[in-house]
C-alpha cells in the first residue's frame, strides 16, 4: 500500500476496518492541524497535547460514525477538536489513564507563553468575548471554529457538523451578533471569506 498517494477516503476506509498502517497515516496527515487548533483554543501546551490525543482516540472509538467531507476526515477531526476544547475535562475524561502514560518533553516556557501561562487564550483576548464564545452551543462553536478559524466554506463546515447549510448560516450570523467581531479580526479572517490556509 502506497500511503502517500492515497486519498483520505481510501486511507480512512482501511483504517476504519482495522489497518494500523492506514490509521498511522491518517494521524501523520492531520495531527499538526488538530494540535495547532487546540493550542489556539486552549492557550497552553499540555492541554493542547491532551486534546490532540483525545481527538485521535475518539477518531478510533467513534470510527463507525466518522463522516468524510469532500473525501477528507480533517473537518471531522476539527469538529472533534472544538468539542474537546470547549469542555476539556469532559472531552478527555474517558482517556485519563492513557493520557497520563504519554511521555512529554521538558517544556521550557518562553516569555510570551509565560505571560499567557495557565490562562485560556480566549481570556487573554477579551474576557467578555471569551465568555460569549464559550456560551455558544456546541454546534455553533464548531461552525465558528471551522469557518472563521480554519477557513472552511460554510457548506463544508455545515456538512462536517451535521447541519443544513441554511441552519449553519443562521447560527453563524446569530453568533456574530452575540460575539463582538474583534476575535475574528484578530485572527485576520471573517466568516465570509472563503480561503484555505
Amino acid at each position, binding site marked *: 500500500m502506497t500511503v502517500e498517494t492515497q486519498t483520505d477516503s481510501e486511507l480512512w476506509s482501511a483504517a*476504519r*476496518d482495522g489497518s494500523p498502517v492506514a490509521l498511522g497515516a491518517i494521524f501523520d496527515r492531520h495531527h499538526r492541524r488538530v494540535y495547532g487548533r487546540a493550542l489556539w483554543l486552549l492557550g497552553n501546551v499540555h492541554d493542547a497535547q491532551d486534546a490532540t490525543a483525545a481527538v485521535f*482516540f475518539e477518531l*478510533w472509538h467513534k470510527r*463507525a460514525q466518522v463522516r468524510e467531507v469532500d473525501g477528507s476526515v480533517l473537518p471531522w477531526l476539527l469538529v472533534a477538536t472544538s468539542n474537546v476544547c470547549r469542555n476539556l475535562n469532559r472531552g478527555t475524561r474517558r482517556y485519563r489513564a492513557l493520557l497520563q502514560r*504519554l511521555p512529554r*518533553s521538558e517544556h521550557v516556557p*518562553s516569555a510570551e507563553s509565560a505571560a499567557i501561562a495557565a490562562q485560556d487564550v480566549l481570556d487573554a483576548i477579551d474576557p467578555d468575548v471569551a465568555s460569549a464564545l464559550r456560551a455558544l452551543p456546541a454546534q455553533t462553536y464548531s461552525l465558528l471554529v471551522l469557518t472563521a478559524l480554519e477557513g472552511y466554506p460554510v457548506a463544508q463546515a455545515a456538512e462536517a457538523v451535521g447541519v443544513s447549510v441554511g441552519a449553519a448560516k443562521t447560527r453563524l450570523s446569530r453568533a456574530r451578533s452575540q460575539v463582538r467581531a474583534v476575535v475574528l479580526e484578530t485572527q485576520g479572517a471573517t466568516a465570509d471569506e472563503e480561503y484555505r490556509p
Partner: protein
Amino acid sequence: MNRDIDPVFATALREAVVEQATVRQAAPQRPRRRPWWIGGLTIAALGATGAAVALVGLPGEEVETRLSEPQSAHGDGSGELPLGAAPATADAVHFEFTCLSPGGFAIGTAGVFIRCTQDDVGHTQVWGLTPLRSLESGTLSVDASAGEQWQLEAWYVETDRVPLAVNDNGETYGVDSAETPPDLIRAQATNGEVGYVRRSELDAGAGPLPTSPAEAATYKPEPYSVPVYEHDGVTVIGEFVVE
C-alpha cells in the same frame, strides 16, 4: 509560544493511536460474570503471532476468540450499536448488557430478551453470544420502550469447541454440550470438589419414566445421588445430588 507539537509526545501518541487498531487476542482484564442462561465460556489466549495454537480451555468447553474492538452504546428506548463489517472468521457476537432502568429489552433479531427489575438496575450484567444473523447491516439493535434505559457493549468473536478428552478406559470426559456429549460429564460434588459424573449412571438413577398419561399424572421423581469421579472414571471424590 512554539506552535510545533513536541516530537516526543507526537511519537508516543502515534504509537498509542495505532495500537488501538492492533487487536490483541489476550484474555480481557475485567472479571466476567457467568451469565445465567448461557453455558460457561472461556476466552482463549493465543500466542503472540496470533497463529492457530491449541485451544486453551476445558475439554468440551466452548471457547471464544475476540476478533474486533468492543463497541458500546447506551440509550433510552430503542437504539442501535453499529459493529461494522464482520471479520471473515467471525461466527457470533459477544454482547454485554446492563439495564439502567427497569424494563424489557430485546437484543438483536435472534430472540434474545432480557427483563430487568428495579433490583437489577445498574448491577446485573447479562452477557452472552448471539449469532451473526441477529445483526442487521452490521448493527445490533435494542428494542425497548421510551423510558427504558440501557447500556450495551459488543464485539465479534470466533467460537471453537475444545475437543473432548479420553481417559485410559476409552471414556470421553469434559464439559457437557449437545454438540459433543461426553461419557463423563464435568460436575461439582456437594463437598465442593470438581470431577465427573457418568452419564449412564445419571440416566439409570432417574428410574422408570412414565409411559402413559395416567402414570405421568402421578409421577413424582425422587432425588437421587450419583458418584463424582476423577477423570479416570474410577476414583470417587464425592457425590452429586439430582433433584
